[in-house]
């Protein structure tokens, strides 16, 4: 991947502060490193990953390597959702990220969602190499498409792979695949939901955020879940007209991962992008302490 990479980033300590010592990008990727995202007292490098035209065309591959040195902090985000345009000759659009997070370092990958247009084909793979005391925030999310104009779950192929290795041992191996033409259409699988999101929080610095998120998600969902009173029973179905009971507009659940439980992953499904933005804004707000600004504050 190294020679074909469209982007390469290195963050290292320079005179005691996190600094961008390498920042290379070529078409179709563009990297912008604004210096004034947070207050000057905050030691963090911010990077905006942009694409020409705001999306990825069929057949394009964006690959980027990121290295966050020991005790450094970096945040990578986008300016708006990443559009994946219609497939031409069933060619895939690809995004690849390889990142290394050093000792006691923090990397936050906090992009806007991926939006696949109808017939689009998209493949994404992100591999993270971490140490036992590295800290990682990873948000990976996608929408049904331009659902406000009626384009819902109409893409052809979506695959997102996220691997986290702790000293070469698999710590978190995640792969989501949605493909048309299987036994059950994507739209049927997703029911009324338009957004699927995953939030990974790993490392000792994020302990407080992990605990708070787990507790709040549990409280939020406990109130939404209840045994069916009559709707689910086969004995009442015959007499009553079928009426779909209201589903929760946002479903979320948290799980610990790693043998010692150092990581938390939240899985979220929601009917609208806005609901997920407010979920992320709320649960990641405390990252401001490390990266100098609250993620998704302007979204």
């Amino acid at each position: 991947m190294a020679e074909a990479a469209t982007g390469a980033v290195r963050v290292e300590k320079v005179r005691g502060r996190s600094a961008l010592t390498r920042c290379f990008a070529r078409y179709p990727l563009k990297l912008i490193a604004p210096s004034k995202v947070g207050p000057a007292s905050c030691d963090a490098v911010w990077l905006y990953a942009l694409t020409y035209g705001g999306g990825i065309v069929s057949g394009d591959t964006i690959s980027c390597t990121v290295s966050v040195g020991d005790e450094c902090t970096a945040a990578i985000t986008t300016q708006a959702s990443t559009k994946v345009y219609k497939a031409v000759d069933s060619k895939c659009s690809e995004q690849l990220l390889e990142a290394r997070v050093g000792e006691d370092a923090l990397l936050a990958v906090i992009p806007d969602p991926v939006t696949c247009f109808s017939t689009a084909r998209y493949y994404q793979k992100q591999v993270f190499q971490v140490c036992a005391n590295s800290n990682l925030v990873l948000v990976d999310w996608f929408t049904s498409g331009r659902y406000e104009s009626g384009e819902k779950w109409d893409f052809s192929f979506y695959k997102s792979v996220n691997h986290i290795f702790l000293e070469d041992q698999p710590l978190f191996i995640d792969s989501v695949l949605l493909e048309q033409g299987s036994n059950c259409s994507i739209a049927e699988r997703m029911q009324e939901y338009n957004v699927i999101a995953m939030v990974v929080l790993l490392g000792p610095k994020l302990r407080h955020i992990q605990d708070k998120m787990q507790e709040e998600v549990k409280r939020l969902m406990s109130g939404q879940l209840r045994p069916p009173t009559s709707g689910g029973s086969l004995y009442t179905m015959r007499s009553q007209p079928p009426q779909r009971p209201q589903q929760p507009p946002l479903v979320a659940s948290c799980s610990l991962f790693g043998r010692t439980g150092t990581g938390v992953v939240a899985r979220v499904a929601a009917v609208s992008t806005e609901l997920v933005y407010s979920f992320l804004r709320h649960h990641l707000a405390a990252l401001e302490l490390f990266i100098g600004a609250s993620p998704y504050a302007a979204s």
Partner: protein
Amino acid sequence: MESDSPVSKKSRLFHSVDCVMEEAPSTATGVSQSLHWTQWQILDSILPTGGFAHSYGLEAAMQSRMVSNQDDLRSFVIQVLENTGSLLLPFVYCSSKSPDVAAWVKLDQLLEATLTNEVGRKASASQGSALLRVAASVFTEIQVVQDLRRTFLGSKSVSFHHAPIFGFICGLVGFDSETAQRAYMFMTMRDVLSAATRLNLIGPLAASVLQHQVAPDAERMLQKWKDRDVAEASQTAPLLDAVQGCHAYMFSRLFCS
């Protein structure tokens, strides 16, 4: 495709009886006959592996109103089967193809990292441990099963996940890997439908009807996902994954997962 393996087995059987060969025909017949008994026993719901303590996310799906009638149930079963095919069959396949202890350890550890949903991960580990315990008591003639259990019991480095243990045992008792994978799909469907009847979503007779109706879909999914490497394992039902994760949040529940 479905009738291939039984037919070929039968013809092999006749063949060995008809022809006079160097090998004693009665032994070959005996082996093949006893394999049937073993296969049926492994698939029998009487085998105490604890499968019936799990709803595969159905209970959480009902409590969040994702599944509220028989049509929803059918779609749910198909999604669970598809997800089983894409995510777990590679583990069944790889461990049944070469039931070797070192390879099994690697598969178990990889699946531990792959099952990122805590509810599903615990369910998989408890079913796998129960299956190994039963297999070690039942198949006393298979030394490897005894050794595996003795070596790793209480070990913190392995979790005894269900799919690799199932494949491992199937491989040792002589299942071909396609049969092992079909058996895994069959058990998954059996357990989800059993949970559906106990959740009062469907009657036992209607569940049997549904099981028969969904079988061709399950076979199609088997053909699609069989014989794949674990590097390809993916989940295909992210909504149900988020919902299943809520299982522990439910105030009242019948199942462990």
